[in-house]
């Protein structure tokens, strides 16, 4: 029983190939682990495939909403928590020691946040979405986005005080 036929499958494959890098990077920030990230993106793309006709014209938006909703509710309901296996952090990525250390510390600190706090930070400071869009995407109020952002940043400051300037956010997401 094919999920998609002919032209629809070709379009979906094209879409998946183009969007996988961006979805993987967001999923990695949300889960803190490359295997979980791949699992999350696979599941997201499966959702898109199953709703390909309904999502026609807006597959990116549909995929993004599915990704973030799953990241918040999926882990909770399946009792799965992202882990931070430092031993397998790739060390071949470019950057000096300071950069690498900062990435490690930030990644470890992100893993200590709740899924919703992580989602709010990623949407606002990685995807550059304003509060209203973040709220709409996560299906919560702007007040919740504000409070989650505040508490997330406060917790990150407490977890990694040496990165104070990173979390003293002065930039304004669009």
């Amino acid at each position: 029983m094919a999920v998609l036929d002919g032209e629809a499958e070709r379009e979906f494959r094209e879409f998946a190939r183009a969007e996988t890098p961006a979805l993987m990077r967001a999923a990695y920030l949300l889960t803190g682990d490359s295997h979980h990230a791949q699992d999350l993106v696979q599941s997201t793309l499966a959702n898109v495939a199953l709703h390909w006709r309904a999502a026609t014209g807006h597959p990116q938006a549909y995929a993004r909403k599915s990704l973030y909703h799953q990241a918040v509710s999926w882990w909770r309901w399946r009792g799965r928590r992202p882990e931070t296996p430092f031993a397998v952090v790739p060390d071949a990525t470019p950057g000096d020691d300071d950069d690498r250390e900062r990435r490690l510390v930030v990644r470890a600190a992100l893993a200590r946040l709740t899924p919703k706090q992580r989602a709010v930070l990623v949407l606002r400071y990685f995807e550059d979405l304003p509060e209203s869009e973040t709220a709409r995407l996560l299906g919560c109020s702007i007040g919740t986005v504000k409070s989650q952002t505040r508490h997330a940043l406060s917790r990150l400051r407490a977890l990694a005080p040496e990165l104070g300037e990173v979390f003293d956010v002065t930039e304004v997401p669009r």
Partner: protein
Amino acid sequence: MSGSLRSTLHAVSRDVAVPVDLADAALRRAGRRRRAHVVAPVVAMVAVAVLVFVVTSVFSSGRHAVVPAGPVSGPGSAPSSVGAVSDVRSEFAAPIARAALMYRDRGGTPIVVSADGDAARALRVSSSAGYRGDAYALSPDGAKVAYGWQKASPVGGAQPKTQLRVVTLATGETASLALPGIGLGEPVESITWSADSARLLVQGVVTEGVEHNGGYGTTECFLVDLAPSGALVRGATVPFTGPDVDGWSADGERLLSVGERDVAVTNRSGEVVESVKLPPTPDAGRYGHLFGAGGLLWSPDQKRVAIAMARAAPGRPLTTIDGQPRPQLLRLISLAPSGSAGTSAPIDVDLGQALDAQVVGWADNDHPLVGVLSGDVEQVYSVDVRTGDKRVVVRFDPGVTWAAPQLAGEIVRAGGFR
């Protein structure tokens, strides 16, 4: 080490290896879900039968687990036969009944704890594959629990089957209301009880919106009445322009809704009976008319509404928490009695420079309480609506700011201060 949060997140994200093509794996997974969908009706019938049997047996046999007496909201309470409650994820207090609804991280089994009877009762909702509940809300009188229920993983483009369910705790009777079209990611977004435990405000995402609303689906907000027969009756759709709908009036007849440009009062028929325009912000051109409203609450006599918000300041964004304090104000709006129109000019009270401000309650009809966060310290002010004078009534030490608004609300309900 230096760098902004944004650039650091982008740097971290580049640490992941990106697979060349996940389309095959995704299509295989989609195929498995579709096949599962074929047998789902049979599984559904069996699961519903089991669910009905379990819920009925739990509530009708009186075999409620007993926990030792203690604070109702203490997440570290002693173990009971429903399992240790140390892994409680959320709790929602019902102040009148002195009961709390908690649900646990693993398996999501909700537990209702009553302070009066010291009894813990497990509300069993299947969380196995294919079925799930969410947005649990305990009624203010502690007698009922409402939740959204959904057959998960909708497949084949079909809409998810979503229901609103209300369980009467004393009898285990469950009333349900089909919500066709609602449900994307979660059964419903939120459920809010009116103070008299007679009505519900339900928010959910309409998935059909994917086709014609920018791809996100649209949030729908509607009222549900609990009929005397126990049936759930879907009421009016509440029009609103923003994502926040708050503030049941004490009589359950009106709702406050804050949009991007105005505050609206809606009656039970979903009609906007009053709308108060909010002034545009200096960021209007760049960010629209968003403002940083931090909660809005009716006064007990339902004649006033208090809203905390960031004050417009040239060149300063209102729409983001950037770690910098900004001028905050408390806006007081006097509303005409129900059924008539018109408002007097709003009164603004300066709250000084702060990171955030939220209305947390009313001490009486003339004194709203507003929590103000400055640095790591949160203080709750009582503000005199006639003079604008404010005084600190509660000061929370650093480290407890997370719970401060809730704590303040509890203190108010207990009549702790005026």
